[in-house]
């Protein structure tokens, strides 16, 4: 078990995840943008496009405009997720001392570890609660219920379990795992060193967390989670620069047409009447 999940599977996961995403993106790239289906009102410069796309991607502009509750839930979930993912990288990478590396703030390594721990706890909880809200929404809002497939609920439950296990390791002292152990594990994997004998892999919670993450990554390219890329691919189609051609009619001189009285019958037969 330890050998499979801890030693062999990670390499398979990384390979399938990468190839899967490349396959999916390649498939999208193979189809063309045939006609111009830009949405108006037009964005007229590249910076307007950049602002629109990033406000959709990072602030969820449309959700904000059309559904505040979903906006709050989705933004919290994604923001916490982003931080949790980032936290995994810097937390294990710098053992929680990343904030001490920022020059000029005078943060000590100890303080940095405190901050790191606090942020991790907050985002871990926020992420879990936000996921719970999204699941709640799927069961309570009539219209949302009608668009939900079993897999949509499964994803949320899956993430709740995955994140839940992460939170247990963080909050239950008996199951806590030191950053150093994970760092050593990951560097060993990267260097293709054997890891099966590591203490870390004796933690059932760690193994379960690791397994769930790996399954998630393997399925990712074949699931709706591809919306991370889909979002940019679609925006690239519907939000582009468009400038209307200049108006102006050939050989039209309104002033002289009016002076000539075009359209007005001779002899003022018809006085304008409404």
């Amino acid at each position, binding site marked *: 078990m330890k050998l499979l999940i801890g030693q062999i599977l990670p390499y398979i996961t990384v390979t399938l995840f990468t190839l899967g995403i490349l396959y999916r993106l390649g498939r*999208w790239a193979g189809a063309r943008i045939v006609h111009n289906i830009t949405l108006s009102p037009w964005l007229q410069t590249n910076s307007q496009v950049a602002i629109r796309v990033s406000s959709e991607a990072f602030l969820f502009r449309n959700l904000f405009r059309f559904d505040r509750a979903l906006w709050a839930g989705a933004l919290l979930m994604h923001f916490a997720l982003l931080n949790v993912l980032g936290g995994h990288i810097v937390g294990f990478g710098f053992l929680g001392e990343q904030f001490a590396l920022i020059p000029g703030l005078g943060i000590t390594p100890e303080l940095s570890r405190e901050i790191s721990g606090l942020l991790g706890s907050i985002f871990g909880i926020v992420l879990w609660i936000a996921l719970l809200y999204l699941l709640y929404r799927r069961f309570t809002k009539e219209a949302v219920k009608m668009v939900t497939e079993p897999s949509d609920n499964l994803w949320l439950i899956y993430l709740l379990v995955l994140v839940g296990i992460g939170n247990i390791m963080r909050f239950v002292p008996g199951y806590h795992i030191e950053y150093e152990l994970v760092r050593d594990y990951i560097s060993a994997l990267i260097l293709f060193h054997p890891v099966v004998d590591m203490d870390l892999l004796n933690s059932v919670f760690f193994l379960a967390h690791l397994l769930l993450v790996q399954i998630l990554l393997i399925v990712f390219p074949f699931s709706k989670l591809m919306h991370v890329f889909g979002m940019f691919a679609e925006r690239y189609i519907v939000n582009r620069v468009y400038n209307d051609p200049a108006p102006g009619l050939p050989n039209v001189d309104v002033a002289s047409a009016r002076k000539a009285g075009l359209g007005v019958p001779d002899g003022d037969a018809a006085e304008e009447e409404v």
Partner: protein
Amino acid sequence: MPEYKGMVQPTRASVAEMRKIHIEPVSDEIKPDKAIEFLDQIRKKFRSFVIAMESCTKCGLCAENCHTYLGTGDPNNIPTNRAELIRKIYKRYFTLEGRWFGKLVGAEDISLDVIEQWYSYFYQCSQCRRCAHVCPFGIDTCEVTFIGRQLLHWLGISPKLHATTGAAMEKVGNHTALPKPGIVDTLEFMAEEVLDEFGVEVEFPVDKPGSDIMYIPSSADFLLNPYTLMGAGMFFTYIGANWTIPSTVTEAGNFGFLFDQYWTQRGNVMRLLNVAQELGIKKIVWGECGHGWRAAKMYIPTLADRPVRWPLTHIHDEIANLILKNELKLDPSKNSKPVTLHDPCNYVRACGLNDNMRVIMNACVTDFREMCPHGADNFCCGGGAAILFDDPEMYRRRILLSKKKAEQVRATGVGKDGEGILCAPCSICKAQLYPMVEEHELGVEVKGLIDLVGKALVWK
């Protein structure tokens, strides 16, 4: 066939009618297989379609932003569910997850029933793109129904309305099968009307060689919306334009866009380019038609089979430009009834006409009241994509599809005294709204925007 297993459907074109537009209907036994074959061909071409198939998170935001779901409460009228009707097939045949996990991810085998679902629900979508406008990713269900309708068409299933209109386009170049003599007669009659009613002498030149401007009116303006065409005639006369109407393309619309973007839509584009060259014109100006203007402005560049030498503009853009330059004298008090504006979806979400319509409106009327929401956020009239079916089942659906619009119009209060104006500057909007304002008892008269311009022009 107005109903199939509880689903409403528009009356179908007969085999003979399909043959007229060059389609040989596929027999029922091989229909499912052919559907997969055609879907496989077309999915590889359109990225907008692929992304709609593969990136929706089922957040459900589009549901209450589509007037068809709001009006009918039918789950399959939720944009993502409408797309799901084809997505479930797409998943089953063209994705790994669909092949492996089947029902769990909502994949389903193709069958005649599924094809009938397509026919029912793709022809309840008005292709208004409000779903694309609100979707957090911009996923455009309109692209899905375009392709769905195209597949149905290739299988030999198109509404009678669309197929016969397509045939008329090929025969005479307009939707209403109006031949040249009829066009010339109607225009002469209109010139008399203008003189009687407005005291203005207007000429409507047809096929005049050496014209500078070629005006493309909607063919519906000859019969149903005469004031729109009269308004255009007055406008061109007022500014002293050297203009003409081509008898071979008296059609701003292009039904091909709505059910057959290959043969039927292209056919009319080529007619247009041919006549522009023959008459030696310098600029093409488009009349009031929502889908037609989108099809022209956004699709001609990619549909034309030769370089397009003529700039294309919309008459609203030109009128607004002259208003902004202070070259038109307009008297808003000639339009003193309360007016509200229905933004044609294609204008505001696909053609950028939003501001210019308001420039014109503000210059031409005294009591303009915006709907809520309006502009790019507006709701469709429920008739878009020419789902103007008259068979009783579909007509009842149309009333439901226009429910949201009716609520909006009522909320503006323009029809309170029974003499408001609902300005809807698109032929399909007009055709939908003429009966719908009666059905919903809105107390408004439906008019185009050029109608109001024509009336407000000050001649001396």
